[in-house]
């Protein structure tokens, strides 16, 4: 008897076909679920780790008692409801108000937990708190999406999660790895802008122009330079847009040069510099909007120099390659000033980014 007519062999062929026709999606759901579950377990460990690091820092460095530490759980679960955008008119002011209210609230409550806390320590705690609450939020959202798909036994529902999970994991891992640098007050990759401008500000008079933002005025080959950066060495990005508003109210600017870290594309090398036009500043968009609005109304050209890096490099300890670009970028700034302005004009130079470990 040949294999073709063997009933047992036919069954062996037909059974898997029937199985895959009726239960294919469930099998795929099972396989995908296992992978996603592993990712979620990792996210949970990142969340726990960041929370423990924060508590450990508060106990060791600020001697905060256990009663006060209970508040940390409440902080971590704090959410921000963004304003309604059905009518986008005036949305930027509303977003700015919401975001700044949250920052003020966190700052005040950390101060209340440790009344004698220095400004430097305060910025460190705020950053650690931000990392821990972001990781908590990521874990909760991904877990929610996963459990909903499982509950409904719905394979298509789990597909978008499978697609976005590698990107989410990359960001979460970068945030987890950023903790040691912020705890020790070391510069991160994003601090390259403040590092470039900070050195130019050394040995010159500094003034506080806006909240956590420092300004120095110097002369360079007949031009007046306004050097601006977040006030270091605390972990803050300052408020460059508010500072620009204050500067422009009393001075005429002929050019703005912004130096920032920028995300590199896949395949691009790290720590390469590029020049361009437009406001080089990340974040939620409030600062960029304000800077662009002022520059447009006063017809000031904005030039930018960026140092390319990955998301992980931007928020973790600065790499040697990125640190090595500082001198070259400083040279590019001076070259840009010479090429685009003439003697007697004024230029604003903004070192954009987190200034942890970078004073001025």
């Amino acid at each position: 008897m040949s294999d073709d007519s063997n009933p047992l062999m036919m069954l062996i062929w037909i059974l898997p076909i029937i199985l895959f026709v009726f239960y294919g999606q469930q099998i795929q759901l099972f396989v995908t679920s296992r992978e996603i579950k592993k990712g979620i377990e990792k996210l949970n460990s990142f969340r726990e780790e960041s929370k423990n690091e924060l508590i450990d820092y508060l106990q060791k460095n600020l001697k905060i008692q256990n009663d006060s530490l209970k508040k940390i759980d409440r902080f971590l679960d704090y959410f921000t409801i963004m304003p309604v955008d059905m009518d986008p008119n005036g949305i930027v002011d509303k977003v700015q108000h919401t975001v700044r209210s949250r920052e003020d609230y966190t700052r005040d409550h950390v101060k209340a937990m440790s009344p004698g806390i220095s400004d430097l320590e305060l910025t460190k705690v705020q950053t650690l708190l931000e990392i821990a609450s972001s990781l908590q939020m990521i874990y909760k959202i991904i877990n929610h999406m996963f459990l909903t798909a499982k509950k409904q036994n719905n394979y298509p529902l789990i597909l978008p999660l499978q697609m976005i999970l590698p990107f989410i994991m990359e960001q979460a891992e970068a945030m987890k790895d950023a903790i040691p640098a912020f705890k020790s007050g070391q510069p991160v990759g994003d601090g390259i802008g403040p590092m470039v401008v900070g050195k130019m500000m050394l040995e010159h008079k500094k003034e506080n122009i806006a909240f956590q933002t420092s300004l120095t005025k110097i002369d360079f080959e007949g031009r007046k330079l306004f050097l601006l950066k977040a006030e270091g060495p605390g972990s803050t990005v300052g408020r460059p847009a508010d500072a620009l508003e204050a500067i422009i109210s009393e001075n005429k600017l002929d050019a703005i040069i912004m130096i920032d870290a920028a995300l590199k594309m896949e395949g691009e090398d790290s720590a390469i510099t590029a020049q361009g036009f437009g406001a080089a500043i990340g974040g939620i968009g409030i600062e960029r909007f304000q800077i662009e609005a002022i520059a447009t109304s006063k017809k000031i050209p904005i030039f930018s120099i960026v140092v390319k890096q990955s998301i992980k490099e931007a928020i973790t300890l600065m790499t040697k390659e990125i640190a090595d670009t500082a001198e070259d970028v400083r040279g590019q700034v001076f070259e840009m000033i010479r090429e685009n302005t003439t003697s007697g004009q004024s230029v604003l130079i903004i070192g954009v980014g987190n200034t942890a470990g970078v004073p001025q």
Partner: protein
Amino acid sequence: MIFSKKKITTVCTVEQCVKCGTLTKRKFHDGDVLFKESSKCNSCDGFTRIEKIFGETVEQ
């Protein structure tokens, strides 16, 4: 991974003498921040300033 090598990151501080420009590299100490005048130069009587703080990763 079974065959992946363990990566260890060392935090380094690079100091430069303000007077003679000599560069020295050492391990990061708590309290180090960029541009801080940190120690006396070994080559001359000038002071050194922290120029760079960065991480160097080696595979083991």
